[in-house]
């Protein structure tokens, strides 16, 4: 297995202007694999691809190709080719000369160039377009020429940077199928960058989900969809209900105030977990309500083509998304069932905010680049003097967010939002780059600028370390 690794990315880190865009990335890519780097914009996926192509250099780490270090090899000596997002077809050359560009540089004999260009054009179904001006082609045709220009050089690895992003939906679907077919026919490695999760699921052998410069999960499309590693992946890939739960014992999980059977084991007793249930995995019915695991009232029902998407409010006050072929009108009393293997349980990344702080004086602590008032904790504070380091904790629900940045003790922006059925779980990124997790009933939007404050009595001092 180790022998068929074509690209080995080891401990890659990269910063631009002090902002870290990639943090210790490790990734092995097998020969002939279709790998997709998937993530929201700014997650570092394009930077990764540019590093593979040679347009960016990592600050740390190395990239091996077939066992050889190519980190410092310039792009024109790398045996891989790129299909650029905006195609980058040379406007001063016609279709034929665009495709022949790489071959002419390699001094390939002209009759062979001719043969290979025609073959590449045939592969992308663009025969007879040789003489055309690239400006006279449609977006889809330009895309095909860009692909032909890359594959004609017979690279070992083809890099594709959101190649279908500029096409309309129908064309994109067609091109997806063609790309998959092309990958099968060529047998070379494809590394594909996209932010479109559906595209990633359709095309890939392996999906690498990235967020904020960190790989969140590597796996087959089935793995990623059915067994997301964390709440970010679950939320990013497809629709999902993500809820807080507790595991009282193996094969049992409690959430939305009900007990469910599940297939997950190996959690600590009474561990707090995140539970993921896909909306299409919930059975919904309006007869025999006594057979239901839990019941609720339909709030809304939207026809989505293949299925109906309903929001059901449970008796206990949770909003659950359900997808079903049958439509239930708003107001209908419904019962719901979830099969044990449709419940996916994940460890929580943390149970509360914890920070390293420094005692200033007079009930003041310094953390997150600001001074905070503390109340209570009398015993701990009595033992503290200026400069002592302490560990503190703040519950998710005890962090207050303000509309006006200057009203808070520190300011930041909302970087991630998760709806947990009856409340929101937000990740706030402070201006200093730290993360604070917040549980709130208020509705915020991603990227909203907020002020953050914490009530003095909500800060718990845990461990103290005298100077």
């Amino acid at each position: 297995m180790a022998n068929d690794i074509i690209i080995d990315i080891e401990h890659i880190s990269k910063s631009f202007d002090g902002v870290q865009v990639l943090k210790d990335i490790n990734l092995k890519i097998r020969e002939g694999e279709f790998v997709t780097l998937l993530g929201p914009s700014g997650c570092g996926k394009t930077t990764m691809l540019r590093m593979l192509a040679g347009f960016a250099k990592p600050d740390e780490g190395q990239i091996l190709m077939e066992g050889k270090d190519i980190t410092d090899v310039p792009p024109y000596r790398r045996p891989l080719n790129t299909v650029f997002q905006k195609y980058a077809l040379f406007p001063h050359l016609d279709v034929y000369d665009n495709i022949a560009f790489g071959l002419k540089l390699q001094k390939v004999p002209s009759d062979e160039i001719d043969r290979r260009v025609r073959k590449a054009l045939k592969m992308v179904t663009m025969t007879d377009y040789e003489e055309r001006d690239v400006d006279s082609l449609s977006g889809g045709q330009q895309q095909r020429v860009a692909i032909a220009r890359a594959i004609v050089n017979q690279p070992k690895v083809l890099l594709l940077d959101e190649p279908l992003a500029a096409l309309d939906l129908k064309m994109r679907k067609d091109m997806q199928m063609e790309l998959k077919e092309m990958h099968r026919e060529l047998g070379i490695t494809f590394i594909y960058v996209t932010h479109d999760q559906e595209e990633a699921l359709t095309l890939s052998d392996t999906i690498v989900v990235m967020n904020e410069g960190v790989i969140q999960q590597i796996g087959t499309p089935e793995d990623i969809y059915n067994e997301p590693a964390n709440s970010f992946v679950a939320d990013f890939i497809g629709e999902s209900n993500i809820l807080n739960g507790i595991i009282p014992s193996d094969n049992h999980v409690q959430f939305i105030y009900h007990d469910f059977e599940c297939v997950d084991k190996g959690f600590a007793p009474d561990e707090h977990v995140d539970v993921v249930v896909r909306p299409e995995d919930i059975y919904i019915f309006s007869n025999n309500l006594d057979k239901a695991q839990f019941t609720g009232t339909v709030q809304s029902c939207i026809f989505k083509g293949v299925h109906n998407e309903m929001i059901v409010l449970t008796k206990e006050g949770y909003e659950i998304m359900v997808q079903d072929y049958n439509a239930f009108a708003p107001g209908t009393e419904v019962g719901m069932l979830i099969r044990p293997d449709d419940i996916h349980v994940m460890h929580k990344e943390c149970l509360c905010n914890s920070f390293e702080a420094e005692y200033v004086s007079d009930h003041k602590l310094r953390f997150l680049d600001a001074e905070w008032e503390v109340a209570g904790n009398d015993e701990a504070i009595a033992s503290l003097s200026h400069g002592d380091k302490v560990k503190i904790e703040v519950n998710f629900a005890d962090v207050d967010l303000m509309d006006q940045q200057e009203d808070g003790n520190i300011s930041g922006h909302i970087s991630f939002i998760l709806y947990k059925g009856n409340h929101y779980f937000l990740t706030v990124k402070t201006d200093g780059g730290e993360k604070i997790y917040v549980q709130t009933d208020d509705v915020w939007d991603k990227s909203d600028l907020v002020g953050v404050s914490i009530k003095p009595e909500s800060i718990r001092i845990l461990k103290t370390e005298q100077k």
Partner: protein
Amino acid sequence: MRTFKRSYWSVPYLIFMLMFVVMPLVMIAIYSFTDASGSFTLANFKRFFTTPEDLHTFAYSIEVALITTVLCLLLGYPAAWILSNAKLNRSKVTVMLFILPMWINMLIRTLATVALFDFLRLPLGEGALIFGMVYNFLPFMIYPIYNTLEKMDKSYIEAAQDLGASPAKVFTKVTVPLSIHGVLSGILMVFMPTISTFAISELLTLNKVKLLGTTIQENINNGMWNYGSTIALIMLLIIGVTTLFSDSEDKRDNESGGLI
């Protein structure tokens, strides 16, 4: 009430153009084809093409203009390339420095050049003339080339590198062909004024070297309006032909070119 048509706004401009562009051109044409008494004649043209001295000046002017243009291109292209390269030049100030001499009147600049040659004890003459011409017109070459290079999509360069082009090949196969519009604009902007200049040649050669512009000026100063006009008309035709030539090259995509 009658509506005020928007096209009425153009009337002042129309009058201006008529008085200062069309009229002089018509006058030049009329003067060229008439003698001092005002009757039609082709004698002026005949005289130009049979006077060896004037033909020589004509050929010499074109030669000087060509040399200046080539030198400006050789100096200006690399300069424009360096200025537009983000790695080599991080500030717009350097671009400003190249353009700055254009803020000063050409005559003053040329007088300063004369003083500089004096100070360095360099002889005035043909060499000084070429230096003065290149010095004066270099910004007109740099700026349009800089503009096209600056606006050029960097992904073309990356695409070429990706396809195996070394930095030298990227330059010859992509950068140069894609900046050809800027080069053509630059050539035009240098060649056109250099062919008709006379102040620079007068000051920097102590009137020893005569260019076509000088001949025109002398004739008109001496009251030979008709002959002067004829030479001016011939010169206009030459410039017109070069403009037409570069226009047809420019048609393919004119949004990426751009004269200043």
